[in-house]
C-alpha cells in the first residue's frame, strides 16, 4: 500500500448564499486495522486516521472520530449551509500523531 498520504477535497461550484452543499473528502491512507497479520504471522500494528476536523474561517463545522472499521483511503462526505465565503480547513490525525492538512476556498455568491 502506498505511503503517500494525500488529501482530496471536492466543493461544488457556483454556490449561492443559503445553499446547502455536499462537501466530499478523501485521504489516501492504508487504515491498517490492527487485525491483519504479516507473512510471519505477526500482527501488523494498528495505524489509522482516527480523527478528522473541518473548520470554516476557524469555526468548527464538522468532526469525525474514526475506528478501524473505516475502509482504507477513508472517504467522508457531509453537508454545509453556506452563508459566507471563506476558507475550509481540513485536518486528519493518525495513530502516530501524523497531521495532514488541506484547505479549500468557499466562494458564496
Amino acid at each position, binding site marked *: 500500500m502506498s505511503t503517500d498520504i494525500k488529501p482530496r477535497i471536492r466543493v461544488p461550484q457556483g454556490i449561492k448564499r443559503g445553499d446547502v452543499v*455536499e462537501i466530499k473528502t478523501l485521504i489516501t491512507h492504508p487504515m491498517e486495522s490492527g487485525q*491483519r497479520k504479516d507473512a510471519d504471522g505477526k500482527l501488523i500494528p494498528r495505524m489509522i486516521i482516527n480523527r478528522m476536523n473541518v473548520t470554516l474561517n476557524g469555526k468548527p463545522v464538522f468532526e*469525525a472520530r474514526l*475506528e*478501524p*472499521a473505516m*475502509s482504507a483511503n477513508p*472517504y*467522508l*462526505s457531509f453537508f454545509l449551509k453556506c452563508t459566507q465565503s471563506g476558507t475550509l480547513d481540513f485536518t486528519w490525525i493518525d495513530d502516530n500523531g501524523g497531521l495532514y492538512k488541506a484547505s479549500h476556498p468557499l466562494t458564496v455568491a
Partner: protein
Amino acid sequence: MTSSLHLPRRRRGLNRRQALAALGAACALAPGAADATPEAARKLLGDLVKVAPKAGKVKIDVPEIAENGNAVPVTVTVDSPMSPTDYVRAIHIIADRNPQPGVASFMLGPDNGKAEVQLRMRMAESQNVIVVAELSDGTAWTATREVKVTVGGCST
C-alpha cells in the same frame, strides 16, 4: 473392498471441511474478535449515548448485499431541520459483528444545514449496521439495517 474405495473420497471431503473450518477460525481468532458480539455493540452504544434511543428519524442507506466487505458504502440521513434550536448533535455508527463494534462518530451542528453523512466501512461478515443520532433536545434516535456480506473484509 468397496469401503476402501470410498475411503479416500471421504477423507478428501473431510480435509476440505477442515480447511474451511480453519479459514473461519483464522477470522474468528483475530484479537478482539471475542468482543465482536451484539452485546459488545450494545455496551458501546450505552457508553456513547446516555439516553435510551427510540426508533425513528434515522435512515440508513446501505446495500442489502455487499459484495466486498472491505468497502461498504453507507449513507446516513437524519430527519432534522438543522436549525439553531433543533439540530443533530452527533451520529454514531456501529457494526455488531466486526472485531470491534465502533465504526465512526460524527459531530454536527446547525452549520451543516442537512444531517447526512456518507462513508465506506469494513464488514468482517454479514451483520447489522446500527446508527444512533443524538439531537440538540437531548433525545436519541436509532435505526438498524442488516447487510449480507459476500466476501468479508476481516483480515485483508
